[in-house]
């Protein structure tokens, strides 16, 4: 699998570290709702088809990327900096 890092260019997957589901939203820090936190920490979906996930370019620029990947074909349809998306940008 090749991930096109927006900073470093296309690189082999061995340079990256998988950092989990990028569709989850961390609850408000002050929330004490155990169900909400439990869902955030433990529940993961395993969709057949497109999925968004975090990959850290650990052997490159060390930025987290949001990679949109088809779970059935491993085809990557978009890659963006996680920071940009977390700041309100679109993938």
């Amino acid at each position, binding site marked *: 699998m090749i991930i096109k890092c927006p900073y470093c260019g296309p690189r082999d997957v061995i340079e990256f570290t998988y*950092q989990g589901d990028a569709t989850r939203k961390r609850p408000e*820090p002050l*929330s*004490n709702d155990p169900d909400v936190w439990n869902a955030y920490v433990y529940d993961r979906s395993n969709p057949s088809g497109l999925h968004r996930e975090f990959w850290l370019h650990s052997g490159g620029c060390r*930025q987290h990327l949001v990679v949109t990947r088809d779970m059935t*074909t*491993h085809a990557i349809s978009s890659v963006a900096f996680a*920071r940009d998306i*977390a*700041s309100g940008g679109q993938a």
Partner: protein
Amino acid sequence: MTSSRLPRGGRVERSKSVRFTFDGKAYSGHPGDTLASALLASGITLFGRSFKYHRPRGVFAAGSDEPNALVTVLSGDVREPNVRATELEIHDGLVTQSQNRFPSLDHDFMAINQLAGPLFSAGFYYKTFMGPAIGPLRGTRFWMFCEKFIRRAAGLGKAGTAPDPDRYERMNAWCDVLVVGSGPAGLIAAEAAAGTGARVIIAEERPLPGGSLLASAETIDGRDPSVWAREKAAALAAMPNVRFLTRTSVWGYYDGNVLTAIEHVSDFKPNRTKGQPRQRHWIIRTGKTILATGAFERPMVFPGNDCPGVMLADAVRRFALEYGVAAGSNVTLFTNNDSAYEAARALSLAGVNIVAIVDVRADVSGACRDIATAANAELLTGHAVTGTHAGKTLSSITVQHFNAETCRVSGAPREIRTDCLGVSGGWSPAIHLASQAGGKPEWDEDLQAFLPPEPNQNWVVTGAAAGYMDTISVLSDAATKGSAKSRLILPPVEAPMLDASPAPVFQIEPSAKSQKAFVDFQHDVTADDVRLAYREGFHSVEHLKRYTTLGMATDQGKTSNVPGLAIMADARGISIPEAGTTRFRPPFTPVSFGALAGERYGDLRPHRLTPMHDWHLANGAKMYEAGLWHRPMIYGSHGETVEQAYVREARAVRQSVGIVDVSTLGKIDIQGPDAAELLDRVYTNMFSTLPVGKARYGLMLREDGLAFDDGTTWRLGETQFLMTTTTANAGPVMQHLEYYLDCIWPELRVHLTSVTDVWAGTAVAGPKARALLEACVTGTKVDNDTLPFMGIVHSKIEGVPVMVCRLSFSGELAYEVYCGSGYGTRVWEALLTAGKPFDVMPYGLEALGTLRIEKGHVTGAEIDGRASAHDLHLDWMLSKKKPFIGSAMLGREGLKDENRLSLVGLVSLDNQAITGGSHIVTDARPREPADSFGHVTAACYSPALGKYIALALVKHGTSMIGNRAFATDLLRGRHCPVEIVSHHMYDPEGSRMHG
């Protein structure tokens, strides 16, 4: 002699001879021979014994699909088992051995297994070795009892134990177009692709290009097709944009159009050039893949179909045309399609005597009849082979009338004397790579075979692999698939009008009592096994495969796949496509571990050395590998045990002063206006209130509320901190912080830099630590006012800028001295010089561990990913004033459970060591102690207490203090009486470090 070398023909170099041995006997062949062709030429037809029944087996195929003729290649002490004799090129000095026979191939004791046939039928292992429910052999113990006998009886070749002396290489390559196979389709597709200027790699698994053209009686461009292929290949190889790899088997197809291949660089050579690898592992990234992998002929399943002398019709042809070898002196053919007639024509032209052609079809075309007549072969249409007679090789076959519509056998058996039977059950496109790539194969009713799936990446399949079975349509398909823009003028082909579509006949079943009919030769799976699997409810192809092991041998069912499915479909009364097929998995052919490893063997880890490493070695340090780091364990002197050394070192720290290399601690430089805010969020305690020039001990949790890491963080400026982490967690903590900054809190203006390797660190600990520093630190005082507990000063030692922080892991008055890593040894030596009047002693990890165990300080052994802050008595660090990572999950039930393990100390009551990892039990019986309620995390001899002590995580820990128990270690046979005590075993008030 049954098989022999023909007077002419083949591409072996008849003028030269090559000497080799098989089972200790010397033979000779010619350059260009495989082991199979050379042995057949010498009249050898018995090659091995079968997997379960030890039945005699001969050569069945002529290439990578060979299921039977597997041999072991010996080279000194090195043995390579399960090498296909049909692919093994002979060379002078080659030593080979047959497999799975005892004591010899001709006299095999285990052939008795044939009589025990029913015992070894499908599911035998599952049914038999569940074992009785009670008794000494209950459950899997029965299997463990029987295993060694069965392992001796069943199996393939034996793996060697000697190290592999050969060199292997790994190569990465990329191209615009990768062509797999160089038969007619591969050559034309490559020519079309290369003509557009594309960068092309062609991979051919055999030594010569040409594929099926190497054994063809047709003509292309008026010439022998093998000559045409050789010239075409040479022209392609000469093009600057083409790389032509022979003896290169493409074995894996992965995501992103990445394919893997093994190139046999020198394993076919008697003498390898120095430094030349034996094999080269290719990882090829390609824009487009053209799969021109051809097709495999299928066998027919009929009684006695596995004896030596029965082989694929195509194999008989290839041995004759490629190697000039007649596989028998009186050959018969048995077929359900026209391709066997082309084989008959080619064989007859090559001088092989064809006795008869047995065809299950009631009628055949005029072209077929003409061929039979020209070959002077008796044509038996509407007939089938219903039995074989063989000792070590075939002597005759039985034929009977057969109705292809009803698949019924009738009439009196007739015996035909023959020593070689060529079988054709139709052709299966070699769709293995396309199937690996991920698609679902599609059944073709006409060919009675699975065709490659729709591409899910940029690949195409061409030629026979795509279902084109005659040369003319293969060439035109390949030209189009090679390049849509292709303007190639295709050469004229002369070939008889034959149709490869077979009659849908897969199995001949004359009666229940006939001989065994094999489907999977390599795993000894019979047609009866497949039907048994059906009767026992294993209907899906996936279950069939696992229950019978059909197709799971080293040949991956290249010959057995479709016949096995056909028999299951028949048993279920459904069609083959309804029964479905399993997905092929890499590797297409077996790959050696050596080739996969390439140059990457032995110790491949980086070794991380601290700046003071050489000093440690020069001063008697015994090193210890902590993750990637090398750290001094002890500084031993002669005759001293490890325990004596660390006790001496730890005692010196408590009595005077010692220094220890702490450069391995993780260090992260954290800068930015929001640096303090980040720390407040990731640590459980507050850091924004920390004054500049002070340090604080911090604890991090994971999001699930369990403890993650601890360390001190120093505030070097309003917006700058230096975080330290445990040695093991330097990477994970960095990644943790990066994750939150990138993905959760992008609004925080903070930058992180890993500076672990930038700073050398030395801890100076002991009652004389301050006196030592006073003797060498310049530019500042180090008294209690200037440098209070957790204070930081910037100063110099021997002119080298240093940062000194007063913090303690040992519980003594202690400091950490950091300097640029290039000055590490200089500062280390300066500290030793300054400490001379106090008998300063360097100490290692063992003493460091002893000091912290005495103090009850936790490290990775206790912060094990399962412990909470509460378990470790660190709840005082959990701020109530702010949320932090993990705070929301702290209150959940599981973390409040009073049965959780918590940290305690242990003192040995028998004055002997407590062993690490021991379980805590109350039962005094050492042999079968009752339930464990905790475990030892770290243990040592404490010089300060004069006792063997340990830290442990124990259920109801705190309330157990004062109780007695046992630390039991069944592995080391130690059952130690202990008293449970507070984890603060030494100086619980902390008066020493504050002094």
